């Protein structure tokens, strides 16, 4: 019978060292066992699913009492992946813990050569005004043949298969309410 890493931690955390080592069938230094236990002791486990390809591998994210990610690994209970992850999935810890993440709202003014940090409120107001302006300027109640079309010709959107189902649905709803027909995303490429 295979011993998964979770089993291993469970067993190694049980205490009676002699029994543990017999169960595992091989020797490990007590220090290593202690280190493994220490790292995840008291950690909160949250299940998630990998964000990369479409296999849908299960993952467990361990967070500490401060809410910080301290570990991410394959979910051994998951029927498709059975605890396995590929190089990308295993590295996805570094998506969350990464100093290169976008952390601020940024704005690039016309003809500018740099980004400027702005607030959500400022950006949302300006984006909403832009959307309205473009919609007003390009809205066609009817097409050339006189048929009702009620569409905004001057705005297009691409994205995103990287969003959750609920977000995709909501995004589709918003774009259609604004009158867009140029709505595309990753599935087309």
């Amino acid at each position, binding site marked *: 019978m295979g011993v998964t890493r979770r089993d291993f931690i469970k067993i190694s955390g049980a205490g009676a060292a002699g029994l543990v080592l017999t169960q595992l069938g091989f020797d490990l230094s007590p220090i290593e066992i202690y280190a493994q236990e220490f790292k995840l002791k008291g950690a909160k486990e*949250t299940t*998630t699913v990998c964000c990369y*390809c479409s296999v849908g591998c299960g993952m467990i994210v361990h967070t500490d009492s401060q809410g910080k990610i301290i570990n991410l690994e394959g979910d051994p209970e998951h029927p498709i992946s059975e605890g396995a992850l590929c190089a990308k999935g295993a590295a996805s810890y570094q998506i969350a813990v990464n100093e290169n993440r976008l*952390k*601020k709202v940024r704005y690039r003014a016309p003809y500018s050569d740099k980004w400027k940090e702005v607030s*959500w409120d400022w950006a949302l107001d300006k984006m909403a005004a832009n959307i309205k302006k473009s919609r007003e300027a390009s809205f066609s109640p009817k097409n050339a043949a006189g048929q009702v079309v009620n569409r905004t010709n001057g*705005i297009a959107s691409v994205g995103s298969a990287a969003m*959750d189902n609920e*977000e995709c649905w909501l995004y589709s709803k918003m774009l*259609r309410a604004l009158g867009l027909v140029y709505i595309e995303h990753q599935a087309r490429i």
Partner: protein
Amino acid sequence: MTNHYIDFRNADVILNMGGNVAENHPVSFKWIQAAQEKGAVFIHVDPRFTRTSTKADIFVRLRSGTDIAFLGGMIKYIFDNKLYDEFYVKNYTNAGFMVNPKFNFNDGLFSGYDAQKRSYDASTWALEKDEAGIPKQDPTLAGDRTVFQLLKKHYDRYTLDKVSDITGTPKEDLLKVYQAYGSTGTPDKAGTELYAMGWTQHTVGVQNIRAMSIIQSLLGNMGIAGGGVNALRGESNVQGSTDQALLFDLLPGYLPNARAQWATLADYNKTNTPSSKDPRSVNWWKNRPKYVASYLKTMYGEKATKENDFGYGWLPKLDPTQNASWLNLFDEMYKGAFTGFLAWGMNPACSGAHAGKVRQAMTKLDWMINVNVFDNETGSFWNGPGMNPKKIKTEVFQLPCAASMEKEGSISNSGRLMQWRYKAVNPPGVAKPDGDIMYELFKKVRALYEKDKGVLADPILSLKWDYETNGHFDIHQVAKEINGYFLEDVPEHPVDKKAYKKGTLVPSFVFLLDDGRTSSGNWVYCASYTEAGNMAARRKKTDPTGLGLYPEWSWAWPVNRRIIYNRASVDLEGNPRNPKRALLKWDAEGKKWVGDVPDGPAPPMGDKGVYPFIMKPDGVASLFGPGLKDGPFPEHYEPLECPIEKNLMSGQMINPAIKLFKEGMDKFASCDPKYPFVCSTYRVTEHWQTGVLTRWLPWLIEAEPQMFVEMSLELGKLKGIKNGERVMVSTHRGQVEAVAIVTNRLKPFLVAGQTIHQIGLPYHFGWLHPKKGGDSANLLTPTVGDPNTMIPESKAFMANVTKLAKQPAPKARKA
């Protein structure tokens, strides 16, 4: 996918053609290996030897863009050797149906072609019907006009010699694959096909997949455990985003988008609701009006009434034949048609075919909204190579969003498995989940319209936009609305005569109504979030069939069916045709199906029961498929850019129905000595798509730090390029610098007596990061797409590769 990942283990023969499963869907490979351990044969067909090939029992090469020739030869082999599953073909496909006598095929063209318009009038591609409107059939399959005989005749031309000449695959290699795969035409054997962008990114992309569907239908491999035609999709939720219709031509749940010629909901329903006069055909799409009405109720809520067509008039409408898909979108942007653009969770500056044109197109915009987890070449396009920021007017808003483990919601994998993800941590800085961002943004837009109405404010002011719990955006409320509610008390539901309470969640799409009493944001997801709870969050691992369906682990659309068309796995009495892998069985005493969720509850087909393919108007699998733009049978055409002067199959060089972009920056050429090598783009395990979510990760960029191009030892010799040297890859559109990998993984092809070299490179890189990693391979690819899907032809185009005069100084060797 018709089937699902774990199901690979149930196959006897697995064909991976049009993909590289070991490197691009690595963890799923365990199920291929599980099948191999039980004796299954794994076949890999690809231009390049990859890590998938290393594990294959049979690996054979073919030239990029010649899959239909390869598969056409297999169809001929199946006919010549009578390997087809006769019971299945006679009962579950349209093999015995009669085709319109005016249909014909001559020298690469089907009847009805208009060379001026580069399109077909498909009216002759029809099945004949009797006076009652039921398709005429010849159960002997012997008549000249039967689908069976026409199919046989069409592929009789795909001889081994011809196929080998086109594909560059030696005849003995073709035979190896044909024999192995053709062995699955008996009820006790299952064959499955796994494909990815290696089949879709061609000007014959849809027909590649159609050709395989024909093979699977002939061999009786559809609707069975270990069978199917399975798209291994590239993104974790590209199945879901397609289902939710982030595409110009669809509304959620595969409802066609509204068009100008359908002025009213009645017009829309009349054109888009297929009918069948055959009592044996379930014709599930007859229910379309219920799904549309329920969708419109989620759009406009109480403002959607019977009197106003549930708000149908407010939906934006395409012109009658307008195609607003990706390539056209960027062509329009390049011509200056848009002032505003949202690149939300996407990086088209690297992912779009002919990326140089895409980047130029962005300079024509007034504003762009770019939402992402990391900075990317799209949001920062104004700062890229060849751009002068001082001359670019585009305002850019770059919004930081939460990563997958920083928010809650569901994603759907390729097996249509909808899995719930929980939030583990907060996003960094001021980053927010995409859902929160769009929720706030639309509220701002709506507030502006409340203040000053402007043009047609009704669809904005009437939109149902109320997904808050305790003052915060709540994704569960959206999930529930996608499932749908009863909006009024239904004292006696027409389906089961039971009472349903207003405000309760609809148990499944069977209960949706067309009169406004139900809502459902996406009918295929109806049953995902019910009064019994959030089905996508389930984690119970029962496996009653022993086939790995795990019906209580999360939830699969539709209605938790794990294998689509599963009624084709049983005989006319409802007994499994392969008792060893019994997917479904009719319990005659209990009068119910046991096993997977059946494709409809009707009893077995028997003499008078219903056909198994319930989504098809005729109820059977389409060997003859009249619904496409480029013909009812797949036919080999060369890629838009190809290395040979003549299509060996016919006088039609390229797919006659593709749109040609010839203006502005769009250029292409065949047999141009400047660009003599066939080129493909592809992926590696350590990166993903344009690399936005991988290039910034230190572990991954260390593993795969830079752009490379693979070529054969023979080509390296021919061009004087050694392994590790820096080279330039160029096409009519652009050029990309790369490190040469001169390798045995590629070999020259012998195509019609001519030596053809093929090269390939990954498309994960971009100029922004890492600094010396190289730019996007899509600077090379052409603006051309499949006529049905408009997916670009990134897998076969013509390029050159040359050694750079300046090579980096060799590193000093340590003593």
